[in-house]
């Protein structure tokens, strides 16, 4: 669950103040490898086709946001079965395989060799609830006039379930990311909404006909904590009511030069993906 209340306090303060976009000189950190290794097994599919994306970080205000890494070697090993999956470079930063075999509860290890340094990460494939319900409403959310899309699912009894919920309107450039833990909702039917409010960051409200991609994933606690920091800092870093921004540390470790750490994360999840069209 997001710290809504903090955001809300902030909103009020900001409502009385004014904001503008300015030019700021920011420091330039070292260039690092970025590993976006998201092996998501969509329920009901074989999950054989998987892609890992490698790039390097760029200066914060750089025009080029994505700097692909081409010459790396990438593989994933199931440490329970010793099965090995090699990912082939597509020469655009993407490395793909069509033979991945996902097994719930098994542990997988990623190995990336880039610039003669080896990076590894380990993750377990977490299970997910079988079904989610997607609906629309007006009276939920913050604005009773605006349309929102709701995702509802039943959290299983017993603490320790973590979720990653992603919405993306097909009209928009960017996704809306939610991290969820069951600490306060354990064993309950929980519902989460995505509502766009007019005027905020010049966004349009949802209207009938709009299509939203929805994805829900079962994730590890460690990945949940990583996402929480990532999302909070992405949305609020620098505002007076947010924590001081800090380095974001994923699970990819550089074995040869530990200080030259890699950004990004290696996750293996079970996922439900669907599309919702507003009526």
């Amino acid at each position, binding site marked *: 669950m997001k710290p*809504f209340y903090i955001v809300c306090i902030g909103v009020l303060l900001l409502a009385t103040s004014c904001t503008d976009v300015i030019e700021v000189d920011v420091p330039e950190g*070292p260039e690092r490898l970025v590993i976006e290794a998201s092996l998501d097994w969509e329920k009901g599919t074989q999950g054989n086709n998987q892609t890992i994306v490698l790039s390097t970080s760029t200066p914060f205000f750089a025009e080029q946001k994505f700097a692909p890494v081409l010459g790396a070697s990438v593989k994933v090993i199931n440490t329970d079965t010793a099965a090995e999956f090699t990912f082939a470079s597509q020469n655009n930063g993407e490395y793909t395989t069509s033979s991945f075999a996902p097994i719930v509860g098994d542990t997988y290890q990623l190995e990336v060799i880039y610039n003669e340094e080896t990076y590894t990460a380990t993750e377990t494939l977490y299970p997910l609830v079988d079904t989610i319900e997607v609906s629309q409403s007006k009276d939920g959310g913050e604005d009773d006039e605006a349309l929102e899309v709701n995702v509802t699912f039943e959290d299983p009894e017993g603490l320790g379930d973590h979720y990653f919920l992603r919405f993306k309107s097909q009209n928009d450039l960017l996704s809306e990311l939610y991290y969820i833990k069951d600490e306060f909702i354990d064993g309950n039917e929980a519902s989460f909404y995505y509502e766009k409010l007019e005027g905020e960051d010049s966004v349009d409200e949802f209207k009938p006909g709009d299509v939203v991609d929805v994805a829900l994933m079962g994730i590890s606690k460690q990945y949940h904590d990583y996402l929480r920091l990532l999302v909070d800092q992405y949305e609020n870093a620098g505002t007076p009511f947010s924590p001081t921004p800090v380095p974001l540390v994923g699970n990819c470790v550089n074995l040869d030069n530990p200080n030259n750490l890699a950004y990004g994360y290696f996750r293996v999840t079970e996922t439900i993906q669907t599309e919702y069209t507003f009526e």
Partner: protein
Amino acid sequence: MKQKKKRYGPAFWLLGLCLLLGTTLVHAQSNFTISGKISDGTNGETLFGTSIFLRGTDIGAISNEYGFYSISAPQGTYTLVFSYMGYNEMTREVVLDQNMTLDVELLESSTQLDEVEVTAEEPERALLRKPEMSVSKLNIKTVKQMPVVLGEVDIIKSLQILPGVTNNGEGSSGFHVRGGAVDQNLVLLDEAIIYNTSHLLGFFSVFNADAVKDLKLYKGGIPARFGGRVSSVLDVRQKDGNSKEFAMTGGIGAISSRLALEGPMFNDRGSFLIAGRGSYAHLFLKLAGEDNSANFYDLNLKTNYNLNQNNKLYLSGYFGRDLFNIGGSFSSSYGNASGNLRWNHIFNDRLFSNLSLIYSNYDYELGIDFFDFDWVSSIQNYNVKYDLKYYFNDAFKLDFGVSTIKYVFDPGRIKPTDPASAINELQLDKKRALESAAYINAEHKLTDRLTAQYGIRFSHFNRMGGQPLNEYLNDRPLVYNNTLRIYERQDPIDEVNYKKSESIETFSNFEPRVSLAYQLNEFSSVKLGYSRAAQYIHLLSNTSSVTPIDVWTPSGKYIKPQLSDQFALGYFKNFKGNVYSMEVETFYKTVDNRIDYIDGSDLIGNNTIEREILNGESKAYGVELLLRKNEGAFTGWLAYTWSKSQQRTPGGDAGGPGINNGDWYSTAHDRTHDVSLTGAYALNEKWSFGANAIFQTGRPVTYPNGQYQYEGISVASYSDRNADRLPAYHRLDVSATYRPNRKPQNRWKGEWVFGIYNVFNRRNAASISFGQNMETGANEATRTAIFGIVPSVTYNFKF
């Protein structure tokens, strides 16, 4: 648990010395004593800080918080001189051949209008000699004269234009003293602890200027009678209420209005004051079609009753509240409440005592509609204090007393408001503690030129049981993972239930406080001070500004008491016949056991705070300069502070490098340069003008040092904590006060105050946030400026 070795040696030595001196001085005396109370002749308010001396001698005294004074001298005939800033000096001839009581009423110097004259703290000879240093005392009249935003007189903002005091940007709660954090200030309103000093997130202070008599800020050299915070003490005292006649004061402003009623009661044996203040900005927001609203109100009450010449009772109370409502789906309310019953008892002409029973409470409530739950957290305390002052003779005065505070901390409860709510009920563990202290402090004139103040406070903290507590493997709630290079929260291995009769942990500390004043000549002196202070409760906040939702937590198994040591050296000079005064002070302060929060800490609704923190230390040092013009049509001051405030948080028991690789880093409230220039000019009886100019180094922040693509968004990477700075802050404010013609026989006195805040409409960055433009996807830096140019009009009246 192991504890730092305590420094019994010097403490006992000091205590012994002071008792020894006391007894020898008692035997040496063959004097007579004059004692009494000093009050204002027009409204009967007792006057704190009146200087009393015997002309032609070095014998003098200063009246205490209740206006009481006591002065001893050999038999003879004397001229007693009473002087107080802004009041006519009064002299009395006395033939001293027995102990006597002399109550005195002083009259304000400006018979026409008291508001015209702005007199800062009077640079008296006695002050040069007094060992008290690092103290800012502000007359409420001076405060009222300063230009302020939206026409609201604000004590906290006025303090911030003195050297050594800063804020954390506009619209931020609290204040910082000598590089200290907000929670390191002890804020007292009529002795009751105030936990949150701000209304509307820092736009206004909780103190209603119409109800306040005086305030004193101790930035260092904190007297032994105060304790519990390591940086400063802000001692605010409410008016007693006019004991001569019924009076009404008030003001109507753009954001809020206020009204105070006061007058005699109990057949002139007492008086009362009732003051209220409320904002109505929410009405304007509603009219403007906004669903959001924010408002505040507060209420001050005080009454006193004279039982007889030697016994007086005071009852005072405060209640303040802030209310927020965002679109009907989110509501929040918070505030302080306090009450205090005091009994002043004069045993004899040398021994004055005060017993106080104090209650105070701060609570925060939040309702979130779309998740159907309420959130409530609070801190409550009950405090009993007994303070005594013994006036041995002109050269030796002794303060001593005891205090005990019982705390109840409720860090939070989540309660579903609807049976269908997806949120489960949750009560975080309530915590209890008892903080007790005893102190003794002497003010001792060693020679004609050298005066010392020395004392010691012994404090004891008992973190009481009545709650479960997690146990961790090897007592380590956090462990550094060398491979992943992060601090990992450990799972508890056991839970221990402490009974209410048990102690979870106890701490005790001796806190020596010493200061010396050496008078170089009639116009200048040097002062030297050392103080140690212990702080047993901590405000948990990992944001750059503290927020009302932040909760207090007691020291215990995992959080140790903060301990500060401060050294200060100062030079004080009056010149041009006391028209000008100059104060230069330098300080060095260290604080042990200052916690900081690990990367990715999550404090909200967290029952295991020990898994979010690391223990560290902080230090601050700097130089302060205050140049004042005290008299004439034009008065004002220039204040300049150069300082540094840093902290360091190594890994400790958790292993690893700690925060920021274990290196020193700037605290969030470090300000290298802080300059303010304040002036007031009285043109004539009708018009007076004021202006402030302020410059500050921007506050430390953390900027991104790169970006990368992940999950379809541009993620910023950050490196060292607080390594960058916001742009410098500066602004100019002006005000004009107009007092229409008044007939002397009219009781109604009105005035118009016109003000312009931030005349140049500079967009000072309160914060800069970094994010991605939702349409173009480009990264942007967004500046938030709270106040541009803000004109205001306020009408004040007195009846």
